[in-house]
């Protein structure tokens, strides 16, 4: 269960490329793990390391201090591709807590929100400004639903209301779903009654 996440202030790391898919975030050959932790070392592995395993000194992800760059700014359609939840696990373990983009893939969004990793979608002009000013200090305020930076007017962003509440309050979604067990059992009874009903003449 993720820690509550309300307000996040950090420098940004900018990766302008569009369509950063989950195979880039965590290559498939690292998916043989049976844990959720320790994947930060493998985050963006093929961007950061040569075929022989040596680090690429020019790779920005090898140069920054992750503790000072909690917010990733990335190109359109971030997190597309495979449904692997290893992608937000890897991003979180590396040190990121949020991504800001102009669009973010559905399954990635769903996975991220369950792991205390905030997907933030902003308009093109805001995104371009974020890209033009890398390393700036940005505040992502989930409670207020806005992105703030420098002297700019706050920019609103939306998060699915239930997921937002879960992140703010640290609600356990599986526990919440389990509270619906009487409804689920009632649904199953109607289904089995229908299945046993005689065929209409």
């Amino acid at each position, binding site marked *: 269960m993720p820690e509550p996440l309300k307000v996040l202030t950090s420098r940004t790391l900018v990766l302008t490329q569009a369509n950063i898919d989950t*195979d*880039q975030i965590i290559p498939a050959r690292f998916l043989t793990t*049976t844990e959720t932790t320790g994947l930060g070392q493998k985050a963006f592995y093929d961007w950061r390391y040569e075929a022989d395993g040596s680090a690429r000194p020019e790779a920005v992800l090898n140069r920054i201090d992750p503790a000072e760059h909690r917010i990733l700014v990335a190109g359109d359609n971030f997190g597309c591709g495979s449904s692997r939840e290893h992608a937000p696990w890897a991003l979180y373990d590396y040190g990121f807590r949020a991504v800001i983009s102009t*669009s973010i893939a559905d399954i990635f969004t769903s996975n991220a929100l369950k792991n205390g990793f905030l997907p933030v979608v902003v308009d093109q002009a805001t995104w371009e400004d974020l890209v033009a000013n890398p390393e700036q200090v940005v505040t992502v305020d989930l409670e207020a639903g806005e992105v703030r930076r420098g002297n700019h007017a706050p920019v609103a962003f939306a998060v*699915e*209301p239930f997921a937002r509440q879960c992140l703010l309050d640290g609600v356990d979604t*599986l526990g919440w*779903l389990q509270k619906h067990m009487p409804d689920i059992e009632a649904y199953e009874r109607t289904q089995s009654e229908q299945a046993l009903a005689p*065929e209409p003449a």
Partner: protein
Amino acid sequence: MSRPRTLFDKVWDAHVVTRETPETPGVLYIDLHLVHEVTSPQAFTEIEARGLKVRRPDKTFATLDHSTPTLPAIDGQLPYVTAEAKSQVTRLEENCGRHGIDLAGWGSPDRGVVHVMGPELGLTQPGMTVVCGDSHTATHGAFGALAFGIGTSEVGHVLATQCLLQRKSKAMRVTVTGALTPGVSGKDMALAVIAELGFGGGTGFVIEYAGEAVRSLDMEGRMTLCNMSIEAGARAGMIAPDAVAIDWLRGRKHVPQGEAYEARAAEWLTLVTDPGAVFDAEIVIDGAAIRPMATWGTTPDAGSPIGSRVPEPKSDSDRKALAYMGFEAGETTTTQAVDVVFIGSCTNGRLPDLRAAAEVLRGRKVKPGVRMLVVPGSEAVRRDAEAEGLHHVFTEAGAEWRIPGCSMCIAMNGDFVAPGQLAVSTSNRNFEGRQGKGARTILASPATAAASAIAGVLTDPRVYLSETAHA
């Protein structure tokens, strides 16, 4: 009279346990949960840590496909790529044993790539909700099921409750009109649709595929089309069940048998979009204009008819993609030597896919220097293909005939394309490094892959198909 509903509406409505509100998502009941070794171990760990059991093992089916070797055992030892891959498989075997889940594991005649196996066994049925921790779960929508990929947290939710918290997606209809021309397959249609929609064009939507050209596809072609919905960003793709679907499923292991089947089939045939139902978005594509397609970039929407020129890059991302692929704008992609050809995957690892490839290859040879791998999608596909002698066609041409699995599509089992090598692949993703670090992938149909193996360059299969027809 009630409001006209889409196919998606009908399947959705039938599975709502509690309705969504502005504050909370709805609870959606899941009829079939498919499980594989890669995206499930952490979910089992999570529910066990909470002292929970798998609530409906009877609605849960597992297979081994992603981390499994496609070469046979040596001295009784399967050649796993790493000890960790082996232990991941062992973990699923243990989890299934402990929770009473049917596993099509090693030695099972049912084992296969999860999205090949489910329909084959009749686990997938029209009108069902189907989920799996795998984005290509959309495949099952070919039968009029609402099928979509989920993350591992949600795998845990379904294991524990048989339900998911969901908000309803928007609906899009993609109508492909007219008749496909000879040599054009469901894969070409999928690549044409994705090129039209764009890589993220389906984000937030469930797609219903309709139209004469879609109806003309066999079930395997429809599965290929639905399978790649996620490559346009759509979590699910659906096709209304018709006589083709009913005939395909009849007699399969998990469907009702005899008269009970015919009664069920009559219900399934009502799963159609009502006249007048409204979609949030509609696009129409001329099926007669689709040609054999291939990708030139590193996203699945970067596709065009084979032989057309690579378009001018419009962004830095496009330029990066062309630099990675080693292609130049304004040139064709049909002159670079191909190193690897892969036929298989949940997209194109079914019997008609192998037949299409074999038809091109029969009596011909894979060009020296090209490595060709043919990996059937399941044990059943392997049995059927071998009964027809297709494996001889492949091996006599110089290709490798492997054990079923995901193999080179996701390249996590030791089957991979080496750095810098160019592959023509029947799989679903041409992302950087998808088929191995530094691998360059061209996505195409099985017939195109086979033709490219013979010529040693990306080749329109109609060249060989017309030769065969005139021979």
